[in-house]
């Protein structure tokens, strides 16, 4: 083998950096003793030039509309305002990374990738209208006015309080050279459905490689049967549930009569 053949194009890894990852489980089964779960993700960074790398893992649950109201004082009593409906917000969201996100990339990059709870792109379409302002056409104006940002941050804050939105600045750790591990905590309140896990490799403030994985959170066994029954045949479910309740009441009374 001559020294000139050293950079063998067929055997050497590609010069462009790449990321690869896999979830240790792709299905989370929700049964009667479900109390949340921890999902472990392993991955590797391939970079022949060994540039400094950061890894960001974003796990997003199914989108669901969010209704939120603000409390205002009317005649000494705190009442809810008219509720505002936000669309496009995930039912579950966590961003785990090797370092704080703002150290990894700039604001604009994070915003475009929806990396971090402050960068989630959801809006309230029913509150928006387009109008012409200062001669500029189709300017999007929100009826919520300058408070719009307060409403959006409130959504994020309340979801975070429920444990459904989180940022984990040290959630991804390199366990060996190029090999990383991330742990995602899924609370018991996490919605049922298809989750998207996005694994991003950052170098020099830019995303250079990306992998997408899916995770299914599904109810199994009796829980699934009940859930489907309640949602697909609600009337027969309601009647059966009530018949069961009345029967249980009667049975208890009958049981107590003997002694």
């Amino acid at each position, binding site marked *: 083998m001559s020294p000139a053949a050293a950079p063998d194009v067929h055997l050497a890894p590609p010069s462009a950096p790449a990321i690869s990852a896999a979830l240790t489980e792709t299905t989370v089964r929700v*049964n*009667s*003793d*479900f*109390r*949340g779960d921890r999902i472990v993700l392993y991955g590797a960074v391939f970079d022949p030039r060994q540039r400094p790398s950061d890894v960001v893992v974003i796990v997003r649950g199914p989108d*669901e*509309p*969010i*209704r*939120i*109201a*603000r*409390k205002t*004082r009317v005649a*000494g*009593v*705190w*009442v*809810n*305002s*008219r*509720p505002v*409906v936000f669309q496009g917000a995930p039912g579950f969201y966590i961003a785990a990374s090797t370092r704080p996100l703002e150290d990894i990339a700039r604001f604009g990059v994070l915003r475009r990738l929806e990396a971090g709870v402050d960068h989630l792109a959801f809006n309230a379409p029913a509150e928006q209208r387009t109008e012409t302002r200062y001669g500029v056409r189709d300017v999007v104006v929100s009826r919520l006015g300058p408070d719009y940002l307060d409403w959006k941050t*409130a*959504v994020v*804050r*309340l*979801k975070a309080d*429920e444990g459904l939105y989180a940022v984990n600045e040290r959630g991804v750790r390199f366990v060996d050279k190029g090999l990383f591990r991330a742990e995602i905590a899924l609370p*018991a*309140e996490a*919605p*049922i459905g298809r989750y998207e896990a996005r694994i991003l490799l950052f170098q020099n403030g830019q995303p250079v490689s990306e992998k997408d994985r899916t995770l299914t959170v599904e*109810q199994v066994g*009796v*829980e*699934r049967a*009940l*859930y489907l029954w*309640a949602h697909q045949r*609600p*009337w027969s*479910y*309601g*009647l059966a*549930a*009530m018949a*069961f*309740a*009345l029967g*249980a*009441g*009667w*049975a*208890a*009374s*009958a049981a*107590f*009569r003997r002694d």
Partner: protein
Amino acid sequence: MDIYLPIAEVSVNAPLLVALGALVGFISGLFGIGGGFLMTPVLVFLGIPPAVAVASMSNHVAASSMSSVISYGRRRAVDFRMGGVLAAGGVIGAIAGVEIFRWLRLLGQADLVVALSYLVFLGIIGGLMLWESAGTIVRRRRNAPPKPRRDRRPPWLYGLPLKMRFPASRLYISPIPAILLGAFVGVLSAIMGVGGGFVLVPAMVYILRMPAGVVVGTSLFQIIITTALTGVLQAGRNQTVDVVLATLLLVGGVLGAQFGARASSRFRAEELRALLALIVLLVGLRMGLGLFFTPKEAFVLMSGAGG
């Protein structure tokens, strides 16, 4: 021992819920009330979505009322005829109430109306009952003669047409006030997640002037019919009945109700009323006074996108 609730989609401590069901069931059997006004706030406090708590309560209340109404029936302490008339009103009220509740949720004002209802109804009824029963207790302690009963037949009530005989209650009265009362209680049942016994019992004593012996059993009988309907309507229209939650509560509830119904004969009626009045008053104040304090969090998420 946590258990996952399939409809509420949260996980809760099972023994705690059974114990809670037993305690509320005992109170239910003792006083002849559904106990929903106690249970619903506690469930919400435990993190169960309010819509699911309110709806699943109907099943629990129906079960524990069923359990104790049979005991009352054996002692001939149920006026089935009066109960049927009240329930006819209750059916109308429950259907209207479920629709009103949907509409309030769409407006985002369900929380306000629920809290105000608790404050106003529990406050007024608890206050009146406490005043009346404390007066009776004080007079008995002093060996004073009982206050002469006022005219048992208020003319505005007994002058109404379509009079019916209610032999078990020894009444000859028009069913109109009973139907109106039942309808009002049915609306409350759907909005507040309660059976409505705390309104029904005093109204039957002070307005309809039924004998105290049949009031509790008759109230439970009407509650079964109203909550059975509310429970089915909530499941059918809103898909918010969690049968696992209801089962956990009713396991304790039916047993507790048995002991409650037995214990009730060991107490004097006015002492029971005074105790119930205190509980009612405290819950009403606890639920309602929150409206006057500046909230820590200015925003509130509302569950259920469609209302």
